[in-house]
């Protein structure tokens, strides 16, 4: 990664810099609020590197969640990464040892950047992608540490700061709702989960496992009709 490639990549990452600093600061502050030193926030951001996953992680640490449940909840919250990888199979080819890091660092924001940008003339393509990934990761760690330090220095009543996780999920849901053609999956997810919560109770979030299984079954049952109306929609858009 030469200085030139890094300098070429930097301007493209500015939106992520703003986003990661702010979301990272809130994450670090939440960690401070449950009594963890800044090194913990830094270690999590370096090793896990997942926004919504780490917000959930704060909740899991605060509730001393059993490891099996930690694994399950992390798995389902990060399920969407599966889709990102699928569309990066070609892009990461031939990156050698850097490919492993590219896969590790494939967050929502880095994915969005990599999917949309092309290196300027004369800049090494693979080095450019790698620089973007490294810069984004540094912003995330930086924001987390800033928030954790601020949270441990400034002693205000932080009761309720854990709501940031709820707020983040609502923001993601609003974004998804706006870009989705089909709203049935989101409604289905909410409905099925509410039913499972009412039937099974909330202890350790175990109602999530049957909810997820039920959701997948229903989505598979609904597949013919969802795919059909998706096609109809595409035709409708084309003809406009």
């Amino acid at each position, binding site marked *: 990664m030469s200085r030139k490639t890094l300098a070429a990549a930097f301007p493209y990452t500015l939106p992520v810099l703003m*986003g990661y600093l*702010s979301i990272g600061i809130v994450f670090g502050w939440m960690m401070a609020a449950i009594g*963890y030193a800044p090194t913990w926030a830094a*270690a*999590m951001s370096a*090793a*896990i590197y*997942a926004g*919504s*996953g780490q917000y*959930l*992680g704060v909740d899991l*640490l605060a509730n001393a*969640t059993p*490891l099996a449940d*930690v694994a399950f909840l*992390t798995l389902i*919250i*990060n*399920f*969407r*990464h*599966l*889709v*990102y*990888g*699928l569309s990066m*199979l070609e892009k*990461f080819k031939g990156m050698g040892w850097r490919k492993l890091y590219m896969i*590790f660092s494939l967050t929502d924001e880095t994915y969005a950047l990599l999917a949309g940008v092309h290196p300027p003339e004369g800049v090494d393509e693979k080095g450019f992608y790698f620089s973007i990934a490294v810069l984004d990761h540094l912003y995330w760690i930086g924001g987390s540490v800033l928030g954790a330090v601020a949270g441990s220095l400034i002693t205000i*009543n*932080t*009761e*309720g700061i854990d*709501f*940031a*996780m*709820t*707020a*983040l*999920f*609502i*923001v*993601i*849901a609003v974004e*998804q*709702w706006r870009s989705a053609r089909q709203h049935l*999956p*989101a409604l289905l*997810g*909410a409905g*099925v*989960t509410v039913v499972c919560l009412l039937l099974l109770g*909330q202890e350790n*979030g175990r109602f*999530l496992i049957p909810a997820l299984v039920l*959701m997948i079954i229903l*989505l*598979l049952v609904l*597949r013919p009709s969802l795919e059909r109306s998706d096609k109809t929609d595409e035709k409708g858009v084309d003809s406009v």
Partner: protein
Amino acid sequence: MTPLRAAAAIAVMAAVTFLTRALPFLLFGRKGNPPRVVLYLGKYLPAAVIAMLIVYCFRSVNFQAAGNWAPAFIAGAAVAVLHIWKRNNLLSIVGGTILYMVLVQAVF
């Protein structure tokens, strides 16, 4: 939670997160396209999962007293309205969280 348990939980989160990112490369890196049913679930399941996680966040709400449900519902609605209106992640998240903190600390 002992530091060792916390470190173990973080290691599990890191390993599972990496796994979800690496899986497509492990499964489909060498040979052609993934099955269409995987693509289908990959397209529609994330929206359902996010909706599920929002319900998860509201899991300890109950209706025995206003203080047990009103702050979460008011602040949650505020986040949605703010985000539809301004579409600024930081404003929606920080604004909603501060509102919630004020509600639980000073109002209810």
